[in-house]
């Protein structure tokens, strides 16, 4: 009973795993480039949760640091990604990722 009442490591890991799943799902299925990018963010955040959880249960600050950096990187990535997506929109008049496949095979 105890592991249901008190929140343990497994809960965090499960959440992060679920987040990761969602993220991958979004990346693979959504048509809109923006949503795809949000999926990427989800993946990164799943990693973040792991880091924080592990850092809490292992002790030591590395995890926290890592999480902070990941957030920063995610922000930067979002910026670049948006720039590219906007450019895509200018050229293709759409942000449908699946329709952009002029180069193949």
């Amino acid at each position, binding site marked *: 009973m105890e592991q249901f009442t008190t929140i343990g490591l497994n809960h965090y890991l499960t959440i*992060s795993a679920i987040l*990761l799943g969602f*993220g*991958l799902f979004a*990346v693979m299925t959504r048509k809109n*480039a923006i949503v*795809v*990018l949000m999926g*990427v963010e989800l*993946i*990164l955040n*799943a*990693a*973040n949760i*792991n*880091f924080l*959880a*592990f*850092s809490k249960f*292992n*002790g*030591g*600050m*590395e*995890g926290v*640091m*890592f999480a902070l*950096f*990941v957030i920063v*990187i995610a922000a*930067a*990535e979002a910026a*670049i*990604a948006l720039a*590219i*997506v906007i*450019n*895509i929109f200018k*050229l*293709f008049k759409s942000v449908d*990722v699946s329709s*952009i496949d*002029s*180069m*193949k*095979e």
Partner: protein
Amino acid sequence: MFELPSGAEIQGIIASLKASVGFFIPEIYLSVLFMLLIVIDLVAKGRKNNLLSITTLLGLAGSTIFIYQQHSLPAGELFFGMYVLDEFALFFKYFFVLSGILAVIVTMADEQFDREVKSIGEYYALIVAMVIGMIMMASSADLLMIFLSMELVSFTGYLLAGYFKRNSRSSEAALKYLVYGAVSSGLMVYGFSLIYGITAQTNLIKISLELAAHGSDSLVMILATLVVLAGFGYKIGAVPFHFWSPDVYEGAPTPITAYLSVASKAAGFALLMRFFYIAIPHGGLPPEDKLGLDWVSLLMLLSVASMIYGNVVALWQKNVKRLLAYSSIAHAGYILLGIIVMSDLGTQATLLYLLSYFLMNFGAFYVVILIANKTGNENLEDYRGLGIKMPLAGAALTVFLISLVGLPPTVGFIGKLYIFSALLAKGSLYLGLALVGIMTSVISLYYYMLIPLNMFLRESKKPDEKSMKLDLAPQIFMTVLMILTLVFGIYFAPLSDFAKYSSAMFGITLH
């Protein structure tokens, strides 16, 4: 639970930081160069001149001086083990700076830039930034550093791939590169988090000690290895993490294609070797002991798949850039062979192969660009009869391709020779891999030779309207590359010695 550090400790920290900075000069210098370029770009806005490119060239060239100074420094950790300085890292520093220089030269030769973008703008700055990122990739000894440097490289890569804003292919390439890269690195970070969870460490050496001491839950470990490998594999463009590369290579500006296919690939390998050799070295042990850390067989899979897939699919390509993209996948496979062996000879072979690949691939792309300047595209069909019109270019390209196949007397042959030697030095253990390598290189001959075949053996369909005369400078540079390819194919002692010297990795526990 976290008590603040005392003043003394802070003093110590600052002192050690100061000490570390002394070992960090090339990176700092390059960062300065990066900013300088941005400033110059702002100042010299709009004006079409080679100011930027020349500055970049000189700047990058200058950095080699600082790198050279580092030979005298002792190998060791900096910044609390975030970063290491060793011969291995030095090798890649040279490597990346040189490839940066070549990228700039190749860019200068490419006339497409004049058509596509009105000002070269921050392009060179980005290249320098990428150099910095890759140098740091090769030197990072900590998961965090690895992640940061890799992202730096990736971001600059995205931007450079999409640099031709008004070119749909270029932008498409950028998008694909972005999405794929983001996912892979995301997965990698997830893997890092798991590793951190298992070992409570982020420093590679500490991780390896931890694993050696307490072992690990193999299931989690294999999961972590897998996803981390996804991140690295995406950088080195090995099957099955290669999917982005053909499209990106085709779409991106040709200099960037060359740059990515050589430099960022190399950076990926540097990272791969450092991570696996140092963090999980006992992955090299026989299967029964390395349950859960079986990354060697994993790499074998990757390399065999890459060699076969890359070469086989390349047979079908009509576009030379795309063809070279697939061939670069195959070459990733060959290089992986050297890593799998997990021996000094293997490391040496890998580095040597990277050097040879550097020469021949840049050479090939350079000629492709020069030809594209005249013909306007990279279609195989338009290569018909070019060998007659521009014999020098034809000869040079042939040499580079032969070297890519791995026939003597070219540097490519030496690379293959070392790789196979490393494999066979272990007796018949890795003979199967060697066989695959040999077979696929025979296959590769077929599609590589398609290019000379079109250039020399066939007459061009359309009458040649404009002259195919090349300028002097490109011709000279091309010839230099060609001669280097040949000379190092015959007298490869310097390369090999350099590779040997550089195969020393800090904190390595190979046997």
